[in-house]
């Protein structure tokens, strides 16, 4: 079991790659995508600024994400995000996906907790049944 806030976790969760502090510090070829993200979210997340160091990685990731945003339903996608992030111990991702699930997709705290307990997500999705997958 992982202990949140432990010295071990604080050390291991620190990113070891340098994340550009701003869009200006990323390659010019990444700027258009980052500016779109900034307009949509009101800020540019660390994840996107990191990927932006390679414009090809950033554009490939955005294409994948855009296509997969059309699959399943938002709450099922949240379940997958939470279970995968829990399995990988990514607290940054867990925080982001928990916030999105609760704030924008109407997922309650119990459902978020259930998703975080399961790995892989298939059993949770099976338990919810057909009605939750639109």
């Amino acid at each position, binding site marked *: 079991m992982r202990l949140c806030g432990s010295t071990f976790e604080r050390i291991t969760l620190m*990113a070891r790659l340098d994340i550009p502090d701003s869009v200006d510090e990323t390659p010019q070829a990444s700027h258009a995508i980052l500016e779109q993200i900034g307009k949509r979210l009101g800020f540019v997340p660390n994840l996107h600024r990191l990927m932006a160091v390679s414009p090809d990685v950033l554009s490939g*990731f955005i294409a994948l994400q855009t296509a997969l945003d059309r699959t399943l339903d938002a709450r099922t996608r949240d379940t997958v995000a939470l279970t995968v*992030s829990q399995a*990988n111990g990514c607290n940054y*991702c867990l925080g982001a996906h928990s916030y999105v699930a609760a704030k924008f997709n109407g997922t309650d705290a119990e459902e978020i907790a259930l998703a975080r307990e399961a790995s*892989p997500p298939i059993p949770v999705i*099976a338990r919810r049944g057909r009605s939750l997958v639109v």
Partner: protein
Amino acid sequence: VTDDDLSAVREAGITDKEIVEIVALSAQFLLTNVATRP
């Protein structure tokens, strides 16, 4: 994912198309997990 997991999800009405989408989403989130905590 075990065979029992796969059977359970199919019995719940999830199609193979949706299972493939779940696998693809899992790969996408694995990528973001790794990128965020390299």
